[in-house]
């Protein structure tokens, strides 16, 4: 059996060989320690360092590079898939009821507000609220992961996928406002389309929030030592 110090030194060995992520290090350290122990039990004269060198040689000329690259690709694809799944969950039963209700309320408000200018003001206000909501969500997100003390590929994707929404809101609204100013045209159809885009942005934020919650719970369960108590 290798000692606890030897086991800890395997994490340093991984870092030395360009594996900076704790979740990858955990698997490699376990693999290395099991392989080293077997080599040392087969040949008791072998030192820990000699056994480690021999085991590492088995990883081939690229060392850990292929494993890290494959894991990066896997995590990125998995996160993208999960984000889309959560996004589309707002368009399937039962969450679709909430989505339809929200859109109906927006359309109703558009009908009540007869003047184009008032509709533009309402959409701008909703867009502004969405940006604020997004900022609050991002702050909560970073607070939640403050306890994470070790970098992990598994949670690295949490910041991707939100930045675009506020930008889209800005572009959509500013282009429409300039259209109204220039041509004095902003009919109910325009209002309905922009409302729908805003609704999609809101759903995107909600889906991202769900994703972060799932990711956090899963990361805590799988890698508790990566978080401070």
């Amino acid at each position, binding site marked *: 059996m290798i000692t*606890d110090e030897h*086991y800890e030194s395997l994490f340093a060995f991984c870092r030395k060989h360009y594996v900076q992520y704790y979740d990858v290090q*955990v*698997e490699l*350290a*376990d*693999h290395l*320690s*099991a*392989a080293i122990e*077997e080599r040392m039990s087969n040949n008791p004269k072998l030192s820990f360092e000699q056994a480690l060198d021999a085991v590492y040689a*088995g*990883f*081939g000329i*690229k060392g850990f590079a*292929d*494993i890290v*690259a*494959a*894991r990066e*690709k*896997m995590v990125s*694809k*998995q996160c993208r*898939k999960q984000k889309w799944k959560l996004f589309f969950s707002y368009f399937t039963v039962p969450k679709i009821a909430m989505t339809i209700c929200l859109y109906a309320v927006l359309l109703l408000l558009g009908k009540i507000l007869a003047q184009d200018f008032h509709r533009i003001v309402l959409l701008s206000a909703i867009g502004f609220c969405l940006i604020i909501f997004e900022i609050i969500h991002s702050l909560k997100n970073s607070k939640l992961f403050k306890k994470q003390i070790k970098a992990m590929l598994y949670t690295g994707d949490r910041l991707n996928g939100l930045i675009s929404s506020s930008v889209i809101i800005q572009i959509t609204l500013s282009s429409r406002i300039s259209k109204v100013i220039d041509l004095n045209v902003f009919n109910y159809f325009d209002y309905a389309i922009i409302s729908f885009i805003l609704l999609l942005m809101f759903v995107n934020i909600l889906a991202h929030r769900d994703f972060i919650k799932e990711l956090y719970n899963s990361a805590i369960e*799988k*890698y508790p*030592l990566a978080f401070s108590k």
Partner: protein
Amino acid sequence: MYICSMKKSSLYKGCLEPILLRLLKDHGRMYGYQMTQMVKDITKGELNITEGALYPLLHKLEEQGIVETETEMNGNRMRKYYSLTKAGKKQTSIAMDEMKAFMQSLEYIVNPKIALR
């Protein structure tokens, strides 16, 4: 690339996935090193799966939802276990059928007399 330390490695290319699926089906959950050793033991040292082939494939299978992972503390050590998902169990049956059909086809090529019967 897939399997090293054997002269006929190219013959085994493409078979690594069904091999791993079969192992996971038979043993429930396994960790990476355990898989390499089990394959080595079963084939009496004929087949050695390299780490550079094993982990990228396991990660690919995890991304496809065929395998799932759980971690467990073993003393002060953390170990990551792989097991088949529901979809993975179905996929294993398909992979085994494909493997048998492939072996049958090879048999016909290697021993044409069987095909003529």
